């Protein structure tokens, strides 16, 4: 039994808060002494992974992470700086070639704040209400003012979509989002079927802690690569931040056009793209229609495998969900995917446009995608390069992920079918970019101990 010290781990690393409001303050840090003073004050308010008493759930939460430039600005010892993994030292922009971030997704097309390399830290405020968000962000700004330790380069708003007057778990394309996240040992909740790794009995169990937190054994029984001293890395993790613009108009008109040609109809086609019906029902469990009862049942909505559907006639081999979490699709009882898992956090930004209303794709609208993992290189970068921007593992040749692929108008998505007239094979060609990258970077999300060491200038690599 792995025990983890939840009071030393930032809450963001352990749970999705499910608060509807968020603001990501992208900070430029001041000279080291002032910046450390700011972090010292911040220590008192950073939210940890401790369980919340049912009667005292906070109204807002605060978390912080640093880019490599941020740690250099804080002047942590050079020996510690250089002990961070190479990809983190380089930052996401320098990894564009590896990630397939070219053309419309290339760094020169990103938002100014990401082009200019000025982001040192990500200070995230999540809140239950708009008022609480303002209040907490106000407190953060006051702290920056008081210490003169940092200033906001940009404030990125994010908010759950309001559909029919209520907050919705859907994203802009209309899919219910946020079902699966890998369970790992030591985390608070019990393992949910379908969310950890497959065991020899065909059941599911939690992944090794070291796949998501530094300082613990990973799936290979090794400690993940982490900075020195050990205390600087332990209970911390790495975060990938990507601002993904969604071209809702392009998506809807593409779906409309192809939906008329596809014998299964528009909604089934939308389900084939992703592997879930837009209400969230997995195609593997219900290939012919959405079933709200499955969506509502946490023991069922992620509890499925692909080994009975190796031809992809229920869920296409290249469907988004199947690509990024292939479960047992590659054989070996899922053994090939256990070291390629990422913890997803994210929230939509921009206004939801109801179906049937005109959409302007140049409006700000999309998802702030954040992924947590112990090794950006082994986990996120592999998923992005091999499973999103390439199709060989999924037996899809050069085809890219339907939703996230950098298609440049030339993409293709194959839907495997059966003789059933409602489930024919179908090929979608000429795929445009439904999603465009607008910037982001790689961050280190330290433990409370590490944050205190940085704030008090006591990081000692000896």
């Amino acid at each position, binding site marked *: 039994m792995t025990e983890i010290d939840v009071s030393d781990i930032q809450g963001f690393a352990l749970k999705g808060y499910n608060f509807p409001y968020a603001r990501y303050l992208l900070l430029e840090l001041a000279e080291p002494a002032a910046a450390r003073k700011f972090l010292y004050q911040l220590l008192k308010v950073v939210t940890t992974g401790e369980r919340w008493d049912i009667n005292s759930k906070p109204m807002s939460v605060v978390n912080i992470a640093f880019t490599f430039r941020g740690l250099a600005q804080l002047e942590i010892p050079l020996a510690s700086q250089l002990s961070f993994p190479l990809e983190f030292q380089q930052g996401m922009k320098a990894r564009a*070639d590896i990630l397939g971030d070219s053309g419309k997704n290339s760094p020169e097309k990103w938002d100014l704040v990401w082009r200019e390399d000025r982001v040192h830290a990500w200070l995230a405020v999540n809140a239950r209400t708009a008022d609480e968000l303002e209040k907490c962000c106000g407190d953060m700004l006051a702290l920056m003012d008081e210490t003169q330790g940092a200033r906001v380069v940009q404030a990125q708003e994010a908010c759950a979509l309001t559909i029919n007057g209520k907050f919705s778990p859907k994203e802009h394309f209309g899919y219910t989002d946020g079902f699966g996240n890998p369970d790992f040992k030591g985390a608070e909740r019990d393992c949910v079927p379908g969310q950890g790794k497959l065991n020899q009995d065909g059941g599911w169990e939690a992944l090794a802690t070291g796949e998501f937190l530094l300082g613990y054994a990973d799936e290979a029984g090794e400690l993940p690569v982490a900075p020195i001293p050990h205390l600087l890395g332990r209970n911390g993790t790495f975060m990938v931040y990507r601002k993904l613009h969604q071209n809702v108009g392009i998506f809807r008109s593409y779906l409309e056009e192809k939906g008329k*040609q596809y014998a299964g109809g528009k909604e089934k086609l939308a389900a084939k793209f992703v592997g879930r019906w837009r209400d969230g029902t997995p195609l593997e469990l219900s290939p012919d229609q959405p079933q709200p009862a499955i969506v509502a049942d946490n023991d069922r909505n992620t509890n499925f495998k692909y080994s009975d559907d190796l031809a992809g006639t229920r869920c296409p081999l290249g469907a988004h969900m199947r690509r990024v979490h292939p479960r047992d699709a590659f054989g070996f009882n899922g053994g090939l995917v256990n070291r390629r898992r990422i913890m997803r956090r994210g929230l939509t930004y921009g206004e939801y446009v109801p179906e049937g209303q005109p959409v302007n794709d140049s409006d700000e609208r999309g998802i702030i995608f954040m992924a947590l993992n112990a090794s950006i290189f082994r986990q996120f970068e592999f998923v992005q390069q091999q499973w999103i921007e390439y199709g060989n593992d999924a037996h899809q040749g050069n085809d890219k992920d339907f939703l996230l692929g950098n298609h440049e108008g030339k993409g293709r998505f194959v839907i495997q079918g059966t003789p059933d007239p409602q489930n024919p094979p179908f090929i979608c060609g000429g795929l445009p970019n439904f999603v465009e990258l607008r910037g982001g970077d790689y961050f280190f999300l330290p433990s409370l101990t590490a944050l205190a060491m940085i704030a008090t200038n006591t990081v000692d690599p000896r």
Partner: protein
Amino acid sequence: MGNVNGTTYGLTILSPILEDNRLDICHSMELRWYLSQLPRDHRSPFAQLSSTYLARLVVMDDVVFVGHPACQEHLKSRYLVFETNFDGDLDTYLRRMATETKEFVDDVWRHCVGFPGTGDARAFIAYMKKCQLSTTFFFADVNDQTVDSTLEALKAQAALAHFMEKNQGKSAAELQRAFGEFLERLRTAPPLPRGGDESRAIPQEKRRHD
């Protein structure tokens, strides 16, 4: 046993590199520089040799001491390591090297001890065989196909996918007619271009993970 897997041949050559203390730049360094400048795309000399799956050239100065309890060992010479996988038999491939990539082979192996040049193909083949080590384990992805037949199959597959996309939803009669035309186009398509031609390859995404 070794060297052959299905119709694929795995060749390993170790050619000792010349030592000459009178030179400003030693042979191994000059060779490293030359190899680093070689194109790796369709302009690569190995793209000319159209039966090549993959090829690798490395300058090996010495074996590396990995620490106790290993003992320190040294090679008698610096070596040029040449590894290649190709279709067919060794003599044909070496003869093609000596004739179709003559200039490249001379530029590389002139830094090696005992290289007779490519002017006499038989002497070159004998020299390479003298430097050959048995290859017991190598990458042979498609054992019973040649590079050419694999490329032909990939082109046919890409054409078929395009055909399916363009013709889905048509009536059975229309589809049959279109498929007949498609098969005819495939049957009368020109043969694969020669090695080294840019259009020979199936467009592949750039893959790098370093």
